[in-house]
C-alpha cells in the first residue's frame, strides 16, 4: 500500500497506524500522529485503519519560541 508520511512516499504492508509506526522503526519514540489532517491519539492508533494514499503526519518535540 502506498502512503505519504511527512510528505514522503512509502510502500508499506501494514494496515493500521500503530503497525505503520512499528514498520517504519519509530518504536517507543514520543510522537504525535495525524491522518489526513486529523489528530489520532496514541490510544486509537491500533484500531485506526489506513487507506491507500493516506497522508500521515508524525511529529515530535522541537525547539520553539
Amino acid at each position: 500500500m502506498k502512503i505519504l508520511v511527512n510528505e514522503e512516499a512509502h510502500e508499506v504492508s501494514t494496515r493500521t497506524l500503530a503497525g505503520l509506526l512499528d514498520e517504519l522503526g519509530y518504536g517507543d519514540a514520543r510522537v504525535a500522529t495525524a491522518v489526513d489532517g486529523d489528530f489520532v491519539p496514541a490510544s486509537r492508533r491500533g484500531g485506526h485503519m489506513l487507506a491507500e494514499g493516506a497522508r500521515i503526519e508524525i511529529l515530535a518535540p522541537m525547539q520553539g519560541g
Partner: protein
Amino acid sequence: MLFYGTELSSRLMLGTAQYPSPEILADAVRAAQAGVVTVSLRRESAGLRAGQAFWSMIRDLGVPVLPNTAGCHTVKDAVTTAHMAREVFETDWIKLEVIGESDTLQPDMFALIEAARILTEDGFKVFPYMTEDLVGAERLLQAGCEVLMPWGAPIGSGKGLNNLFGLRALRAHFPDVPLVVDAGIGLPSHAAQAMELGYDAVLINTAVARAGDPAAMAAAFRLAVEAGRIARQADPMEERDMAVPSTPVLGRAVLA
C-alpha cells in the same frame, strides 16, 4: 501571579529556538532562571530521532513547558496542532498562535478567538498570542482565556514595545488578568519597560538566542525583569514636561 492556577518560579518565559547549540540553550535557560520554556512540534524521522534527544534535554532542565502552535495559519491547523502537542508534552497549556499575515507574522485575531473557544471547550488552558486590540482581548476572555499575550513588536524584530499606549490601555482595562508581552523584545531595557508598565511576565526568544553570548544575555534579561517588577511595585513618579529642581531652593546663597 497565577497562570491558570499555577505560580511560576519566575516572570521570564524563554523560547528554545535558534540557539547555536543544545548546550548553549541549556546554559541560557539556567542563567535566565526561566519560569517556563516554550517548545514546538515538527516532523520526526524514524532514523534521526532529533525530537527525542531535544525532549530528554528539556525534561532534564526541569522547567515547565509551554508548547506553541507556531506556523499555523488556520483554526483547523492550530486546533489539530494543539491536540498533538497536548499528547506529546503531557500538558494542557498551549501558546496559541494563528498567523494572519506573513511579513509581520501578525496574529489573525478572528481565527485566534475561534480557535481559543474550541480549545477551551476541549479542556485546554490557552495562552493566546495576540495584537494589543482591546476588543479582541475582551473576546478572548469571553472565549475562556485567563491569560493574554500581546505582541510588543513583530516576532524576531527586536523593536521593543511598538505601541506603549495600546499596551498601557490593555493593562488598565484588565487589571486582574495575567498579561505577558510576547514577541518583539530585543533588549533587557524593553523587558524592564514591559514590567514597569505592570505586565506580569515577558516571553523572550530571539533576543537571547541570537545574542553573541546567549547565557550572559539571559542573565541580563533575568535582572531586567526583576528590576522592572520591583520598580512597578515601588510606584514610579509622574512624568513632567518642565524641570523641577531636585535640590531645595530655600536657603540658597546669594553670591552676586
